[in-house]
């Protein structure tokens, strides 16, 4: 779901903790020196505790950090030197993590009347973090703004122009935010109960991250109003998005599409029915790989990862794995994880949450 960040290898190695190799096990040190990318993902450990882990390309564990509750997505600062993990909704914390593993996470607490939705982005200079949040007493989505240079103080919020904002991305212009407003109203008094399924109206909203001004908003056709738009991946200015169907699952409905401000229209991807039905109405994560001109999306309910060629508009490949959900660009293909402990070829005792974020040096990106 995240576009790889491009940083120099020196900074990259510093962010892995390579400067502290003497403190590490041989395997850990070797993994750090050899990897060309660092992934991060939330997990649940066998003892029931939750945390965030950083991993090598091959899925070897680099560092792990305990969280007070279940985390969801993670986002890297552009220089790779900081990582934020957001609590899974309706959680009220975000953890600021030092990916070198040298200091414990510090916590950002949601303000009164708000909770996090599990996703956010940094501004290009790393000065601000934007987080999708729920103004639950008013059934209104907001984008919380945090000043990273002032103790992550919450300095304001924008209207998300929709209910249930979930994933959020920053377009390549470094200024325009795009928000996936899932459309589902929830309230922490009744955790995870969906309060408005019959009348839900998801949308994709583009906002100016400096002024909060609404730039554009796109809705699905009325007969698709139960497709909750949850996750996105960028391919240039093109926003690929993935949905979760709150309606009838017997009739297979397209769940993945694209939109851009330039095109001004939503186009759903044509996925063959025999593939589409295996998504079981639920796409949990989506990632774009510009090198391969592919997107990949996963359905943990269907146990399937689908690679889709954006040029030919054809399915390029399928991978089956129970509970597969995490996906991120890796080389010309994709890294993946599942809720059974697999992270690429490596099997862990941790159960991996829905998303993988990635930080990689420019040299690796070009290889």
């Amino acid at each position, binding site marked *: 779901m995240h576009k790889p960040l491009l940083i120099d290898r020196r900074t990259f190695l510093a962010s892995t903790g390579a400067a502290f190799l003497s403190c590490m096990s041989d395997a850990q040190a070797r993994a750090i020196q050899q990897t060309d990318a660092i992934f991060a993902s939330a997990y*649940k450990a066998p003892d029931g505790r939750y945390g965030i882990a950083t991993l090598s390309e091959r899925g070897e564990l680099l560092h792990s950090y305990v969280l007070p509750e279940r985390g*969801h997505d993670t986002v890297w600062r552009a220089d790779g030197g900081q990582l934020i993990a957001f609590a*899974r*909704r309706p959680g009220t914390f975000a953890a600021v993590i030092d990916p070198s593993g040298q200091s414990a996470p510090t916590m950002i607490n949601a303000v009164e009347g708000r909770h996090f939705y*599990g996703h956010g982005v940094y501004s290009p200079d790393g000065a601000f973090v934007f987080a999708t949040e729920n103004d639950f007493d008013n*059934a209104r989505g907001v984008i919380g703004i945090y000043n990273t240079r002032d103790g992550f103080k919450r300095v304001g919020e924008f209207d998300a122009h929709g209910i249930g904002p979930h994933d959020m991305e920053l377009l390549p212009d470094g200024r325009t935010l795009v928000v996936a407003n*899932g459309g*589902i109203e929830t*309230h922490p*008094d*009744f*955790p*995870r*109960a*969906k*309060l408005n*399924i*019959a*009348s839900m109206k998801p949308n994709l909203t583009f906002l100016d991250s400096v002024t909060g001004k609404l730039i554009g908003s796109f809705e699905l056709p009325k007969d698709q109003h139960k497709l*909750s738009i*949850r996750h996105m991946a960028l391919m240039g200015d093109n926003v690929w998005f993935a949905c*979760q169907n709150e*309606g*009838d*699952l*017997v*009739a*297979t409905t397209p769940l993945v599409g694209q939109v851009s401000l330039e095109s001004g229209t939503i186009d759903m991807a044509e996925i063959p029915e*025999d593939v589409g*039905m*295996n998504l*079981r109405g*639920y796409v*949990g994560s989506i990632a774009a790989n510009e090198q391969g001109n592919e997107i990949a999306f996963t*359905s*943990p*309910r269907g*146990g399937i990862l689908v690679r889709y060629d954006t040029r030919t508009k054809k399915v390029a490949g399928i991978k089956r794995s*129970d*509970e*597969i*959900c*995490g996906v991120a660009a890796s080389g010309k293909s994709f890294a993946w994880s*599942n*809720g*059974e402990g697999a992270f690429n070829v490596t099997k862990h005792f941790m*159960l*991996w*949450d*829905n998303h993988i974020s990635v930080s990689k040096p420019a040299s690796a990106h070009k290889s």
Partner: protein
Amino acid sequence: MRIAFTGLIVAVALLTGTVQGAFARDANDIVRDVIADYIRPATTALKARANTMHAAANVLCEKPNAVALNTARDEFSALVKDWGQVELLRLGPLAQDNRLERMLFWPDRRGRGLKQVRFIVRSGDETALDAAGLSEKSVAVQGLLALEFILFGDDSAALTSNAGAVRCQYMQAITENIANVTGEIEAAWYDDGPQAISTLWQNPSDTNPLFRDDREQLSALFKIVGGGLEIVSVQRIQPFLDDGFDSAKPKSALFWRSDNAVNIIASNFAGLNAIMRAADLTGALEGDVTRTADSVFFEFDNAARTLKAINKPTADIAVNADDYDKFSYVNIVGRSIETILREQLSPAFNLSSGFSSLDGD
């Protein structure tokens, strides 16, 4: 069970040298029995009760009086009980055409539904006074919560005289609408057509839009029971227990107005218990885990016994620490059953953990 029990079958084969006939039941047997022995009869009972509710509403409106109102209120409580046996079957017909929301718009956190209901009663909005018109309106004014307010809410005594004629007419529209929806639910579960839920659930295949194999068949069953227990705990019990006895919120309970808060929870537990009994998982397992499968019935019995001992009205949980504690205990029992399903029975059937596919993330 062709795939799901592979590990177990291999183990048995090593011990006995045989594979065939290792288990008395497979996924198809389990699903078939759950549908035939539990789901279909439960939907029939619900439809029948909805019809008697509608009949009681008609009697009350024809000749408004206190006895007829009490009869209608009793029918409502019985309807709640029968609804509690069906409402957690959140696949198939309840997930289609907004049927779940049309039957039960809850939680209504900001009282939006209630505001609309009050408006209809106050204004006599004619478009809401017959079932056809009502079915086109907001789901919040169509179902059981609206009916509860009409029968038990402010000014419900007006139903004993002609002064409550509009209220009564709206009630008839609601009860007819509920009868229609429950009829659709029953018909859908009895439908044997190729795309019907009963057919799909019993015939997994690569071209089946919901069930590829026996693991998906059983996952759906575990999701009904485990998910149902979670709904009862997280959305039904915990909101009124809140953080402790001193902060209990009896009005956050479903159906508090008609004092059916205990009844709906008891019915939910009874329904899930009956599903597990119909499933008879012990016949599909071997070894110690069969005792685990049986242990859920002990826990269900604990929950039922405790719920039966809770005094009414439920509002008293705010002043009666014993009843508060009983609800807390039931909540723990429910979570305990859910944990057994997730951590012991689910792995015994080689089902995935569901960690990454929980609702809506």
